[in-house]
């Protein structure tokens, strides 16, 4: 009799814990957006064997999904590029600011050419507070610099994210 009572209490506790924690995290949502921008880069090391540049880019995003997550979001991207034996390695951080003034910080690492890499949400404010998620990053457009020392390009970011409820 006592054993049956213990099992019932444990079962009740288990169900209670499940209902308490499940609503805290929303389901993973897809995200797929293209960002296009322009910026400048500065040579830190101009050695042909080991080149290092620092760059800063500003631009705007458009969502490629019906959920329109990250549509009309402006961004400020800063980072460093290392070029050794024709291979580029990029580390960067981006602030994405939505039309309401809420923003997220994202970390991007990529290698190339062709430039491809991964991104990860690090921080969010307002409706993005507690955001987590990762995805792939690849370049979709790039032209000849319109003036020396500048860059103009578009990239696509595809992945998933979660927000706490």
């Amino acid at each position, binding site marked *: 009799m006592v054993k049956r009572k213990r099992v019932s209490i444990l079962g009740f506790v288990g169900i209670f814990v499940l209902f308490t924690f499940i609503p805290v995290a929303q389901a993973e949502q897809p995200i797929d957006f293209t960002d296009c921008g*322009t910026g400048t880069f500065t040579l830190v090391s101009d050695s042909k064997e080991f080149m290092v540049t620092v760059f800063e880019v500003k631009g*705007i995003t458009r969502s490629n999904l019906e959920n329109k997550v990250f549509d009309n979001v402006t*961004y400020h991207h800063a980072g460093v590029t290392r070029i050794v034996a024709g291979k580029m390695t990029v580390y960067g951080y981006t602030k994405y600011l939505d039309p309401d003034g809420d923003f997220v910080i994202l970390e991007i690492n990529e290698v190339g050419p062709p430039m491809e890499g991964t991104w990860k949400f690090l921080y969010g404010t307002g409706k993005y507070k507690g955001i987590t998620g990762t995805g792939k990053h690849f370049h979709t*457009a*790039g*032209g*000849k610099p*319109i003036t020396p020392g500048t860059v103009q390009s578009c990239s696509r970011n595809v992945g998933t994210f979660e927000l706490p409820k």
Partner: protein
Amino acid sequence: MSSTNKRIMGVVVILGLFTSIPFVQAQIPFDVTECGAGPVTIVFQSNEIAVSGLEGKGIFFSNHANKVFDNCTFQVVQIARVVDGKRVANSYWKIMDPDGDAVVASVDIVGPEKTMTFLHGTGKWKGIKGGAKGKGVTTGKMIAPGTFQACSRYIGTFELLK
């Protein structure tokens, strides 16, 4: 007019047609989205009127199967005025393809309507004529004070000298 003169006139007209036609290619359609960013300078701002200028740089991507103007970068200078809520702006663009050939264009903006006119071309764009109608497709919040970030879509046609 004598029949000999008529024949000569006919030959001249036909010759003229054949000489002129090959110099102009058929109209080529294009459909592009441009996204750019840059600093904005407010010259004057009051409740009645605002005057501003901007310099932007950015990139085009094509929405058309022919991929005309895909991966072209650009630099634009613009002046604008907003009077009683109505915006009028004029801008000049250098649009450069990946080979380094360039097109100079103007864009005149009245309210939401944008009209692009090609003024000059170099290299493969020499003799370009045509233009497009455009509209803004983004409404973002400026990422830093005194800057803009925006995209517009333009659909039009152009001709090139052969």
